[in-house]
């Protein structure tokens, strides 16, 4: 497991470490977020709209100051090393706007002047791959081109850590595929760490080693992607009248239609099926779950516990 819950006192050698982060807004609050992201991993942050993904990422970038807690990025506290840390971090957010009256080439020159690590050759390759024209002004770009232009400005500086907040949001399938292809190339570089947020589980599932679910300002689950997929199961059970759910940890009834009951389990083991059978239920189907289904189940459970 590359992403773990932490306590405040543990030292960190992680790419990103959030400990006890809280942030209060008028209509939203981020509560006691603890998160550690290991170097060289690809991490997905999944949550519904308004869950707090963007706030978490803004806090990592020092754009928003937490009310409580500590933030370290690339082993340095962001609050006192903001500029130094950002030399090695590329941050994408749908909120970021470029100067609309200036061209892509002007932006490249501007960003290049602040980053000694800027790679001219790679920047030219990205221009080609993304089909961007350097002289084109930002105000003339489509949404997809604007996203690609911003990604170019981020990627060409070869950042050690990439924080990508919904980078494929609103892109058409072709543009999405181009962006993903570029990210997949970066993923192959083991020295770089990526945090990728989305409300679309499929986007994240494709590239992530580790997944964190966030809902209503709280981290509700975090695990290795394959462990998530392996540990969750859905059973369709035919149950006799008066059937009582057996005491299996993590087993939850999702729905009941007559004598057909759908249950989910978040810590599947081979002997679980035997337990279910011995309780009198007949297993009609035992299914693995997609990440999206797991996410929905985790959110439902989290909200139920919080009620």
């Amino acid at each position: 497991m590359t992403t773990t819950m932490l306590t405040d006192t543990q030292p960190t050698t992680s790419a990103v470490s959030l400990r006890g982060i809280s942030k209060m807004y008028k209509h939203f609050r981020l509560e006691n977020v603890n998160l550690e992201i290991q170097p060289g991993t690809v991490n997905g942050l999944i949550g519904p709209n308004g869950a707090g993904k963007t706030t978490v990422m803004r806090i990592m970038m020092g754009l928003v100051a937490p009310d409580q807690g500590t933030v370290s990025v690339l082993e340095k506290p962001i609050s006192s090393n903001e500029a130094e840390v950002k030399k090695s971090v590329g941050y994408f957010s749908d909120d970021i706007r470029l100067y609309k009256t200036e061209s892509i080439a002007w932006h490249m020159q501007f960003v290049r002047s602040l980053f000694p690590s800027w790679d001219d050759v790679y920047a030219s390759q990205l221009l080609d791959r993304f089909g961007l024209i350097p002289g084109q002004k930002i105000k003339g770009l489509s949404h997809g081109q604007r996203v690609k232009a911003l990604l170019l400005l981020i990627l060409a500086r070869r950042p050690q850590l990439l924080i990508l907040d919904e980078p494929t949001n609103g892109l058409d399938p072709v543009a999405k595929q181009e962006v993903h292809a570029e990210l997949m190339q970066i993923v192959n570089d083991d020295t770089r760490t990526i945090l990728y947020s989305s409300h679309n589980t499929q986007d994240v599932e494709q590239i992530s080693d580790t997944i964190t679910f966030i809902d209503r300002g709280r981290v509700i689950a975090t695990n290795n992607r394959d462990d998530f997929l392996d540990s969750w199961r859905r059973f369709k059970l035919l149950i006799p009248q008066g059937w009582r759910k057996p005491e299996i940890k993590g087993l939850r009834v999702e729905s009941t239609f007559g004598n057909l009951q759908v249950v989910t389990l978040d810590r599947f083991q081979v002997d679980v099926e035997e337990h279910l059978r011995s309780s009198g239920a007949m297993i009609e189907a035992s299914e693995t779950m997609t990440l999206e289904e797991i996410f929905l189940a985790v959110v439902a459970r989290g909200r139920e516990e919080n009620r």
Partner: protein
Amino acid sequence: MNLQAIQILFLKDLFLSRWPLFGYLVGGLLSAMVACLPSETAGFIGFVMMITVTIAAGIHLIGVLLLAESIDMTRTFVMSLPVSLLDYSIAKISVVLVAFLIPWLGMLAGLTVLNFVVPEAKTGIVAFLVLVFLFMLAGFCLQLVTAVVTESVGWTIVVVVLGNVLLNLFLKTLNEHPVISELNKSEVLSWPPIVLQIMAVQAILIVASLAFAFFWQSRQRDLV
């Protein structure tokens, strides 16, 4: 503090405001020339033009360089680059001030030179002009503080309007003041104590406004 980053941000903003800046500089110099023409009407028109150019330059530059960055969300882009809040604050407040000072100084210097060069001009009026220009600079600094603190176009315009009303009152007061009104008719430039006292108050207001703008900007916790 990263001086190189501050310099890059400063030059970036100066470049982004190059066209309005050029326009205000040319407009200001033209106004100064009209103000020094040997005709009372031309002088009045030129003076009103200068005041108009200065007020327009102030609100426009604050809008383009300061407010637009938070409204258009380009500030998130800038702050995602390796700059600290301190670097950003120094660069931003300096460039807004310098951008305003370019046409402001152009006009004041142009007027001063013309008043010494044009034979019909009364050189004594330069002290009066300095007071008026310092008033407008102080007004601009108050607009700057308002924009930094509120990040609101509406509130900044309220301060512009108030400043305009106060400028008219200030001009009336200066014209009715026995010492200052005499200066305007004098062939010799002089700096009586009342002029120096007003200048001192204006200087304090300017410095205090800029210090507060910088203090507020550099202590912001949330930039988006």
